[in-house]
């Protein structure tokens, strides 16, 4: 019964304090952007010209379908992270997208219209090599999967296995490719490096080995990209050491020799040190491949060759051309080229241009190939794409398209072409270009960019929110207060003039409103551009600076989600660690805001700094210090130089300190403050936490900054390992020093700004012996303030450390559930020193309260809301694996929640303890806009105390505002102005009328 009542009270309380979304607020303050990641495989739905689907598979283990008209997602399916979900290949036929995932473990067929599975098969484990679609009699029926030792054939319709055969000598021969030309045979190509090629022909009906032979090839190293099948089953290989092409007919019975064709005999020259790449095409898996193929001889040199009657002849030479791609469409032969705009055609006709239609092209398919000619040296911005006929190499008329690609985006990496026949039988095409920075650009024929997607944003590593700059007039006003007073009269004049400017601006604004109102609504543009950016009244609109794993930086407007600037850092290693710091905010007007990105290579530990303006994305003129030694720790001090930029300290592995900026003024200040600048280092491999202090230089040499060890805590790494160390956010404000209790006494919070929460996990993962430890350590003195151990628990652990509390979440291995635990620190009913907190002078340890709760879901990430002054109550924002972001009131995580509600606890508004934490869908701040794989949640205060800005990032980006204590400082957006004014007017008129009536009545009475 008691349980029931607590449940009921909980239920009613929930209604009281939720900060949910109203239905009419959908999309008003929030936006979501969905991404898929770097595209590995892409296919156009080439069923008809009107087809508007794109099927993608990406490095984030995602299969998705895009609308090719708008670039929006039709559907997206996110598999699990890591190698188990990795997509090996994507094949597309008809409406079915066949996906091989998990290194040949799962074979799935997606129905591309609905976005659901047709079938799913589990294959035996084995290292995946290749998969193709195979067919007989002009219809594609099978999927052939080649693994290291096994070849299996599956029906395309239901995934069932037709046959599976083990490959002979799989321990010596590396089988790498499988090929079918629609006949009854399925060829498997194997390689014994630098010895011979092994070719096995299987009967497609029963899997019987029809022939098996090995051909001596002492130059061969691998099959992929070096070998291909052209024409009626002729194997072609290219080799860089012998500078030759090799040919071998697959169908011939006798073990023939490879026929060598030196590249010189074809008038071709290989770029020195370049590994040539062979690109063949097979438009229909049930038919033989084309006789034409591409040979890439250098990074920007491609040649189109043709095999006819056993002879290889070049058709056309393309230089410079970065990317080439084959595409297939209906009935006529056309082609396209992309070249620098000022040059007409940068491809010179090579060797023989075949004028006659190739005998093997008798079938009524048309094969176009597309050459993307890009000249890096000239002008990357303007390049053009043209179609060329595959069988003659001639350029087609009216197919040249000028393409403007972002010069900052690096080189184009991949090209996907969708060619189709127009009504007048000419060939039209659409292009999907993937750039080095993972941008996808979709182009249509008259050179129009239909859409582009910034797929780098699928992997945001870190972000910051920066206030927008003030407008000119606002800055003028602000400047007035900053300057020193120069006489009363001057000040009055200045005040008047600034008021005049304000009035002028207001009138201009009114005029604009009036002017816009006359125009039709569609004409009024409300676009956000970098020029029109200005801080709004309540500082609700900010600039989101995002750093992605690929090394691309973005500046995004928080209100609309438009990317305002992007900057690609070309020289970033793929395994780098980033740390973004705001050195100077927009508050110091004539000085531009300044952000510093610390890029650290994970392996070498060497770091570089990228200093930029967060509003415009431009690289700053300030030259950052060169860092020659690996950086261990970085530290942003509240100390400022004359230009108001905060000082960044970088500690290298010799415990030497580099300051940035390092002007004389800064160094002097540092020397003065040295005794009070502390920092800590964590070495998780040795379980060592150590605290350091900046040492004063003995002589007057200011440049040399060294450190001294103050304390050291060793957590034995044989027993437990440190998984997380978290301090408090520097920008956090705490409004109230204590909590008023039911008996009117005050319980003071222990607000130690130097407190670190260290989380450890046991090395022993057995469920009976595993544990999670939490240490609260003072970062200045190294004093362990509190220890808590959660037995039979393991990670992953999510931790939030704020104010006077630490909330962490762990997995209870015994009860198999997720649990929250909250630690709250109090000084007691008396404050030791109420004016200032010093870690060095705190004799009493704080009182620590702890309580744990069951959470009925696992979580992805956790963060606490943050507001300007810290008056608003706090909520925890919890990212759930289901894609929801839960706004959980901190009130539920209060260790003072009583078991039995008493008069005092009721007065304190404490909710009676209930073991299970509620999850209510009304608390989902992103309602049905679920976000996948939330990696982090960023919270920032706005100018309104009630409002906290939230950005959740991961695969998707979601931005919204939350009001943990509801909107107490602004009128709600559903505020009923009509009612209020009608009541006012009603009352006013009622008074008037009654006054008149009263007068009349009094007059009458007087006459009586």
């Amino acid at each position, binding site marked *: 019964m008691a349980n029931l009542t607590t449940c009921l009270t909980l239920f009613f309380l929930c209604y009281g304090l*939720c900060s*949910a*979304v*109203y*239905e*009419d607020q959908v999309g008003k303050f929030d936006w979501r952007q969905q991404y898929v990641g770097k595209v590995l495989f892409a296919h156009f739905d080439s069923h008809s010209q009107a087809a508007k689907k794109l099927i993608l598979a990406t490095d984030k283990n995602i299969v998705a379908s895009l609308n090719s008209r708008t670039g929006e997602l039709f*559907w997206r*399916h996110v598999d*699990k*992270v890591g190698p*188990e*979900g990795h997509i090996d290949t994507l094949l597309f036929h008809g409406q079915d997208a066949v996906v091989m995932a998990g290194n040949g*473990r*799962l074979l799935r067929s997606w*129905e591309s*219209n*609905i*976005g*659901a*599975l*047709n079938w*799913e098969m*589990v294959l035996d484990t084995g290292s995946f090599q290749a998969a193709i679609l195979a067919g007989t009699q002009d219809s594609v029926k099978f999927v052939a999967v080649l693994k290291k030792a096994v070849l299996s054939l599956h029906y395309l319709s239901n995934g069932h296995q037709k046959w599976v055969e083990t490959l002979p000598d799989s321990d010596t021969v590396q089988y790498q490719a499988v090929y079918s030309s629609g006949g009854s045979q399925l060829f498997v190509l194997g390689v014994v490096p630098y010895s011979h090629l092994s070719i096995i022909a299987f009967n497609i009906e029963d899997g019987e080995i029809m022939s098996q032979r090995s051909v001596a090839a002492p130059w061969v190293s691998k099959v992929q990209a070096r070998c291909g099948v052209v024409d009626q089953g002729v194997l072609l290989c290219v080799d860089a050491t012998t500078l030759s092409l090799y040919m071998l007919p697959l169908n011939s019975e006798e073990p023939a020799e490879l026929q060598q064709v030196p590249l010189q005999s074809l008038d071709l020259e290989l770029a020195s040190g370049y590994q040539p790449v062979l690109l063949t095409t097979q438009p229909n898996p049930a038919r033989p491949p084309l006789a034409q193929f591409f040979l890439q001889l250098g990074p920007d040199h491609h040649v189109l060759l043709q095999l006819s009657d056993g002879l290889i002849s070049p058709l056309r030479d393309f230089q410079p051309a970065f990317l080439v791609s084959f595409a297939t469409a209906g009935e006529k032969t056309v082609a396209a080229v992309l070249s620098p705009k000022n040059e007409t055609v940068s491809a010179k006709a090579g060797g023989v241009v075949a004028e006659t239609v190739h005998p093997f092209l008798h079938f009524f398919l048309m094969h176009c190939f597309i050459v993307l000619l890009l000249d890096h040296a000239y002008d990357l911005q303007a390049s053009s794409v043209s179609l060329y006929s595959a069988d003659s190499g001639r350029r087609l008329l009216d197919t040249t398209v000028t393409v403007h690609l972002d010069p900052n985006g690096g080189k184009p990496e991949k090209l996907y072409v969708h060619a189709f026949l127009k009504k007048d039988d000419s060939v039209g095409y659409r292009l999907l270009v993937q750039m080095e920075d993972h941008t996808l650009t979709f182009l249509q024929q008259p050179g129009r960019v239909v859409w582009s997607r910034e797929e780098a944003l699928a992997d945001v590593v870190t972000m910051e929110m920066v206030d927008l700059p003030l407008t000119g007039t606002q800055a003028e006003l602000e400047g007035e207060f900053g300057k020193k007073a120069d006489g009363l009269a001057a000040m009055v004049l200045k005040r008047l003039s600034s008021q005049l400017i304000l009035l002028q601006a207001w009138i201009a604004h009114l005029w604009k409103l009036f002017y816009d109102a006359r125009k039709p609504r569609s004409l009024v543009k409300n676009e956000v551009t970098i020029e029109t950016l200005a801080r709004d009244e309540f500082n609700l609109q900010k600039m989101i600076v995002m750093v992605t794993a690929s090394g691309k930086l973005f500046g995004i407007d928080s209100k609309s989600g438009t990317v305002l600037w992007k900057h690609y850092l070309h020289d970033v290693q793929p395994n780098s660690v980033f740390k973004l710091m705001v050195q100077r905010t927009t508050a110091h007007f004539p000085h531009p805001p300044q952000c510093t990105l610390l890029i650290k290579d994970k392996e070498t530990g060497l770091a570089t700094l990228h200093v930029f303006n967060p509003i415009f994305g431009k690289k700053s003129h300030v030259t950052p210090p060169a860092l020659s030694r690996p950086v261990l720790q970085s530290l942003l001090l509240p100390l400022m130089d004359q230009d108001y930029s905060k000082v960044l300290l970088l500690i290298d592995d010799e415990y030497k300190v580099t300051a940035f900026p390092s002007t004389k003024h800064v160094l002097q200040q540092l020397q003065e403050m040295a005794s009070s600048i502390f920092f800590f280092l964590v070495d998780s491999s040795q379980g060592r936490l150590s605290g350091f202090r900046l040492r004063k230089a003995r002589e007057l040499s200011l440049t040399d900054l060294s450190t001294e060890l103050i304390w050291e805590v060793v957590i034995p790494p044989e027993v437990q390992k440190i998984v997380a160390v978290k301090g408090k956010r520097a920008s956090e404000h705490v409004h109230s020093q204590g909590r008023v209790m039911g008996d009117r006494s005050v319980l003071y919070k222990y607000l130690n700004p130097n407190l670190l929460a260290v989380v450890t996990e046991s090395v022993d*993962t*057995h*469920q009976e012996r595993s544990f999670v430890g939490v240490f609260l350590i003072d970062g200045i003195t190294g004093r362990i303030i509190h220890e808590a151990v959660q037995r039979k628990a393991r990670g992953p652990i999510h931790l939030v450390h704020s104010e006077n509390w630490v909330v962490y979440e762990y997995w209870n*291995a*015994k*009860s*198999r*559930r997720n*649990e929250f635990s909250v630690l709250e620190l109090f000084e007691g009913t008396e404050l030791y020193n109420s004016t200032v907190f010093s870690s060095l002078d705190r004799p009493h340890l704080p009182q620590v309260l*702890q*309580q*744990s709760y*069951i959470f*009925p*879901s*696992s*979580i*992805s990430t956790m963060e606490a809301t943050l507001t300007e002054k810290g008056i608003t109550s706090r909520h925890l924002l919890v990212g759930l*694996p*289901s*894609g929801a972001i839960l706004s959980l009131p901190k009130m539920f995580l209060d260790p003072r929640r009583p078991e039995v509600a008493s008069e005092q606890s009721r007065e304190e508004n404490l909710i009676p*303890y209930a*073991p299970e934490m509620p999850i209510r*869908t*009304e608390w*989902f701040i992103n309602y*049905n806009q*679920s976000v996948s794989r939330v990696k982090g949640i960023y919270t920032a205060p706005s100018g309104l105390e009630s409002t906290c800005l939230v950005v959740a990032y991961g695969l998707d980006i979601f931005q919204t505002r939350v009001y943990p204590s509801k909107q107490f400082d602004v009128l709600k957006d*559903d505020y*009923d102005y009509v*009612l209020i004014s009608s009541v006012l007017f009603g009352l006013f008129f009622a008074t008037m009328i009654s006054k008149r009536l*009263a*007068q009349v009545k*009094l*007059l009458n*009475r*007087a006459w009586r």
Partner: protein
Amino acid sequence: MRLRRTVAPWWCFLHSVFALALGFGDMEPGPQTSGERFRIEGRALVHGVRLQDWISTAHVLVEGEEHVGFLKTDGSFAVNDVPPGSYVVEVVSPTYRFEPVRVDITSKGKMRARMVNYIKTSEVVRLAYPLQMKSTGPHSYFLKRETWGWTDFLMNPMVMMMVLPLLIIVLLPKVVNTNDPEMRREMEQSMNMLNPNHELPDVSEFMTKLFSKSSGKSGGGGKGGKSGAVKRSWKRTLRGFSQQDFDQTLA
């Protein structure tokens, strides 16, 4: 540490008879058995909604994101490569709500499905396996706006408090003949009973005097005398009423 205390008795209260009889006694959670892997199968259903309307946004999660499964075009699903253990399986859809189910897999590959109970973790309420996940309806994400209606306004206690005395002021003089001297005397007596000390200055009276001074000109001499007395007495009743109302609401 409260949690452990509350949960411990439940843990001891193991449904051992049931569990052992079914051969689930040797259950070992966690991924330590790297040997065999099993498949969790089931079907998801949303009553009255076509499959293609919701299926593309739905997927199956096993124990957070540890294992992921996808729905087939007929609504069935299978999660592959799951090692023996105990897992919470949930169908996740942004529009429809599904109840999670706990699935236990023994090292021999025996499966059973039961209700998720995080508090009494060992309690077994069996469910059908292969799983039948029926949607319990659409998610309710939104709060209803407080709409404004006349009834809400009128039923407001403050408004009631104002309107009722007003009615009395208007209606009572009509019912009771105030010109009858006997009646008036009676009323005055009752007023005196209510407010025994006349000498105490009344704040509201003071205020009305203060404000009516300026408007007194237009009112002429009609203000004094009996009508004033009557007004005052009614005001008192009014105050009495509202005081009573307050007490009631507080209680």
